[in-house]
């Protein structure tokens, strides 16, 4: 069954809550693309905002914008993915514990440190009693949320859903992952670090604002590449498609020489080496939920029927865009496949 993506909203290194990223994206900085925050006054009352960290404010602004653009007041489900949750709060609670020991700790940071605080606080803002869930699984956190959303539609339980991906880059997180060799270093090992705040509204009905259809989502974890290729072929087959039926493959390649090759190997083995490709992490940076930007890009490509040069990868000629496959992976370990159609 198809669920339609009716709206998307982002706060990233690009102009916040705008669609300019599609036509005129800014290049991301070499090592990290910190997000450009929006003005949050119009979205959240000062009383509500005082306990919200940066990531929660971004979630509120993107969620409310996406809902408004899709003309949905209260969604039937709110399902988010976040790799690390509100790290700013977790770090503050941890450092208070380190500095002052286990007494006199302030509860607010703790409350806001749980991963589900984002989806549940958006529910609180909307007074929305609907289905509410959060996934926190490395590079497939957002994709798990999207899969859950799709299964809720398939089971006929909902007709609208708010799905999103959220991660923030605190100096502490940047340092830690830097030490572990995640970001650009010598010989271009590592990616550019990024943050994610993307909300999208899905609907069972093809509304006027619908950008594209979400056809299917699958994950494949901890398997060697040949098995991942088999899983991808099975995924296409399950959707009645031959590899040649997809017009574009959007991959999560991020410039890290250690892992980008596996995208090449996977795409070549399933599609041959002349499949048109696109990528987006050079614009938005890498984060656990960066795959949400890929879906956003795929949706715009299908809506406008064009792919601009900043997002093109490789030299294969593109034709019309009817179906797009997204492939994302976390360090060649957790893979996700998403199928979008016009």
């Amino acid at each position, binding site marked *: 069954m198809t669920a339609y993506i009716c709206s998307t909203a982002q706060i990233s290194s690009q102009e916040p809550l705008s669609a300019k990223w599609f036509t005129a994206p800014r290049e991301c900085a070499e090592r990290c693309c910190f997000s450009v925050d929006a003005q949050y006054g119009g979205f959240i009352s000062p009383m509500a905002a*005082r*306990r919200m960290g940066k990531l929660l404010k971004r979630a509120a602004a993107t969620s409310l914008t996406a809902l408004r653009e899709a003309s949905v007041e209260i969604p039937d489900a709110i399902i988010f993915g976040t790799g690390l949750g509100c790290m700013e709060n977790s770090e503050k609670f941890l450092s208070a514990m380190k500095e002052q020991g286990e007494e*006199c*700790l*302030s*509860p607010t940071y703790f409350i806001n440190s749980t991963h589900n605080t984002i989806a549940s606080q958006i529910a609180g803002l909307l007074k929305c009693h609907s289905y509410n869930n959060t996934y926190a699984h490395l590079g497939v956190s957002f994709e798990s949320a999207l899969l859950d959303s799709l299964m809720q539609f398939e089971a006929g339980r909902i007709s609208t859903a708010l799905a999103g991906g959220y991660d923030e880059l605190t100096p502490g997180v940047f340092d830690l992952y830097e030490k572990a060799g995640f970001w650009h270093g010598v010989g271009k090992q590592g990616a550019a670090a990024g943050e994610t705040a993307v909300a999208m509204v899905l609907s069972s009905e093809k509304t006027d604002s619908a950008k594209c259809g979400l056809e299917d989502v699958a994950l494949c974890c901890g398997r060697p590449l040949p098995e991942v290729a088999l899983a991808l072929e099975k995924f296409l087959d399950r959707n009645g498609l031959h590899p040649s039926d997809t017009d574009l493959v959007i991959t999560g390649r991020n410039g890290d020489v250690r892992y980008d090759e596996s995208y090449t190997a996977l795409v070549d083995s399933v599609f041959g080496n002349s499949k048109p490709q696109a990528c987006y992490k050079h614009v938005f940076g890498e984060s656990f939920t960066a795959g949400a930007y890929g879906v956003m890009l795929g949706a715009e490509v299908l809506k406008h029927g064009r792919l601009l040069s900043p997002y093109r990868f490789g030299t294969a000629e593109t034709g019309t865009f009817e179906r797009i496959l997204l492939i994302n992976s976390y360090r060649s370990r957790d893979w996700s496949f998403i199928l979008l159609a016009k």
Partner: protein
Amino acid sequence: MEQLKEQLKRQIIEALNFEGMKPDDIDSSAPLFGDGLGLDSIDVLELLVLLEKNYGIKLSDPAESKRILQSIDTMADYVAAHRTK
């Protein structure tokens, strides 16, 4: 006493993250909860932490806490009488 009230207000604004609010914006006699400043149960806990950290006052009886945390005036009275630092 006025100085203590001013100090409490500043500490509350900081601890509860009231961005852009000034001590003068808080009426010392107005209720902190409900119709006044509109604080909730998490704020109570933050205020208890504030009292313990800054004044060495440890409150454990919820009914007593409720009475003491009614307004800046009641807080200041209690702090002045019971502070250990």
